């Protein structure tokens, strides 16, 4: 099990909002055990049959089995909501919200770490175990159950690649969206460790993109492992325009890392094949799995 499974009871923070209520419906349809929602000032309502509370405290009082929360609240209130979840003892918090101020993100992630809490996101499609539970906003039907772990910095690109995998008959054990913001609660190394320990995952597909050095750091980490599961990567942004320059500091701190060439080289040097297009991913998966089955 990677963080969640079919039995995980889920709280929806921001359940009465447009996205919160819509995706509560989709998650419930998928079978996710959503047992309560929170929107301050809306306590006593119901959304799709789910009781709404004013505070996380009250939700937990009535539903002590809640183990994870998914956060849809607007960016300027997300920090408040995430800290409320942490302080009430929740250990897995999926932050869908986009556009949270950077300093708020830094503080909430730092605090979560100090409390042993896993934050998925912010700005993530969430986490999903196909056939069991979906704590997120991904279109469920493209993810088939299977034995591939999927970890990604990008939302829609993940759907694309999951669908390509599915077309060739490859299913997914768990998919984790790290989130698209510069600072996220999980990185590739931490997500890989979760998959490494998961007996239901044979192989990991890593979906990266230009910017930052998360892919290079993972490659460095992976290359030093003695026992490892195979990893395949796809990196978006080979032809992307250069992003905004962060003074000299951005260039100094990245030390030449962050562009497509750097990431591709680091991954290949670590023995990780890099696909050129999303549709190539299942082809490489097939090669690796058939090679392994011959051993």
């Amino acid at each position, binding site marked *: 099990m990677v963080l969640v499974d079919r039995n995980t009871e889920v709280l929806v923070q921001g359940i009465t909002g447009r*996205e919160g209520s819509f*995706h509560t419906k*989709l998650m419930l349809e998928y079978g996710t055990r959503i047992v309560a929602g929170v929107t301050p000032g809306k306590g006593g309502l119901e959304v799709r049959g789910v009781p709404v509370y004013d505070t996380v405290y009250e939700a937990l009082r009535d539903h002590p089995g809640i183990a994870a929360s998914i956060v849809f609240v607007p*960016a*300027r209130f997300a920090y408040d909501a995430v800290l409320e979840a942490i302080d009430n003892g929740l250990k897995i918090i999926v932050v*869908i919200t*986009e556009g*949270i*101020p*950077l*300093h708020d993100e*830094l*503080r909430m*992630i*730092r*605090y979560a*770490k*100090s409390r042993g809490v896993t934050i998925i996101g912010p700005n993530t499609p969430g986490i999903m175990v196909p056939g069991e539970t979906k704590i*997120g*906003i*991904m*279109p469920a039907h*493209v993810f088939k159950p299977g034995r591939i772990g999927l970890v*990604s910095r*990008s*939302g*829609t*690109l*993940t*759907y*694309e690649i999951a669908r390509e995998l599915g077309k060739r008959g490859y299913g997914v054990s768990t998919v984790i969206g790290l989130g*698209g913001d*510069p*600072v996220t609660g999980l990185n590739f190394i931490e997500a890989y460790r979760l998959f490494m320990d998961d007996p239901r995952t044979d192989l990991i597909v890593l*979906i990266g*993109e*230009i910017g*930052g*050095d*998360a892919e290079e*750091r993972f490659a460095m980490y992976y290359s030093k492992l003695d026992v490892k599961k195979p990893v395949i990567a*796809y990196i*978006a*942004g*080979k*032809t*992307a*325009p250069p992003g905004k320059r*962060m*003074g*000299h*500091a*951005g*260039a*100094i*701190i990245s*030390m030449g890392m962050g562009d497509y060439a750097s990431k591709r080289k680091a991954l290949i040097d670590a023995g990780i094949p890099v696909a050129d*297009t*999303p*549709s190539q991913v299942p082809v490489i998966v097939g090669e690796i799995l058939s090679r392994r089955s011959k051993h």
Partner: protein
Amino acid sequence: MKLYEYEAKKIASENNIPVPRGILASTPEEARRAAEELGGRVVLKAQVLVGRRGLAGGIRKASTPDEAYMIAGELLGSSIRGERVEKLLVEELVCFERELYLSLTVDRSGRSYVYLVSPLGGVEIEELVRKHPEKLLKISADPFNGYIPYMSRLAAKFLELPRREWGLLNSIMESMYRIMINYDAELVEFNPLAYKCGGGLMALDAKITIDDNSLYRHPEYLKLYGRELSVLEAKAKQLGFSYVELDGDIGVICNGAGLTMATMDLILYYGGRPANFLDIGGGAGRDRVREAVKLVLENPRVKVLLLNIFGGITRCDEVARGVVDALESSKRRIPVIVRMLGTNEEEGRRILEEKGFKVFSEADEAVREAVRVSRGEV
């Protein structure tokens, strides 16, 4: 959002960080008076947001007020790397012995703040530090604690500053952190930070970048948001899109930065050239999609429009309605190729097919079709 040097220096100065005496000038006459007030010998600095303005001639010295007038006449209204010079910062000349580098930014991987410190300040800092990594000191500052005075002692020793400057460096680094927090900055950078003749430290240049997501907390900057962008880019930003113009002919609209980049990569992989990067973000509704389509159609280079939408929080029916709205209200008639999957896919497909659009399921097929159309092969 990047601030101009004069804005960053004003903030620095208000936080007790020494900066040269300076006066903002919008006309040659103002520059002359500024030079007079500053004692005659000055430096004139074009206030632009593009980098490396010094190498492009945007920083000039003048020995007399008349020379300042003349140089200001040349600089004002000129263009530096595509950006028009509207204002000059006229500053006193400062005698210094060494140019240092000092910045505070976010260490993404470390999920922390980080001070970057180097004795190799100046325009060549990036190359110098890459060649001499031992000349760079990174000091991590935990988001809980922020700046702690010991950090300045580490920096002072690394910069080999005499003991009498330690207090000033402490005060500067403390102020940098305060600026970082109070202005929701992503970057506070002084390059060079001068070690002056006879002692003392002074920020000769200053860069501050404010986190766009925090601008709602800073209404005075929010209203200036987007000022450095092209007209179309500014419009996109107002609408909440990420938009960058490129020089190809296939208009691209996708949802999600990753999928947008992957679609562009695929266009090039199949031999085409994207006209733009446009990510409508997550959860865009009918109205925003309509505006996105209209925006791309405003670019005369665009020969064909390719939408690649994979619905998650974005709903395909909303996208479809937005596309139909835009095309029905636009005078331009160009081929539109839609690839659409995910949340409410059936409804979106139905809406588009009713209007006669061809909707693809496979990205490769849609991209290949767009490339063929752009090449006139269809």
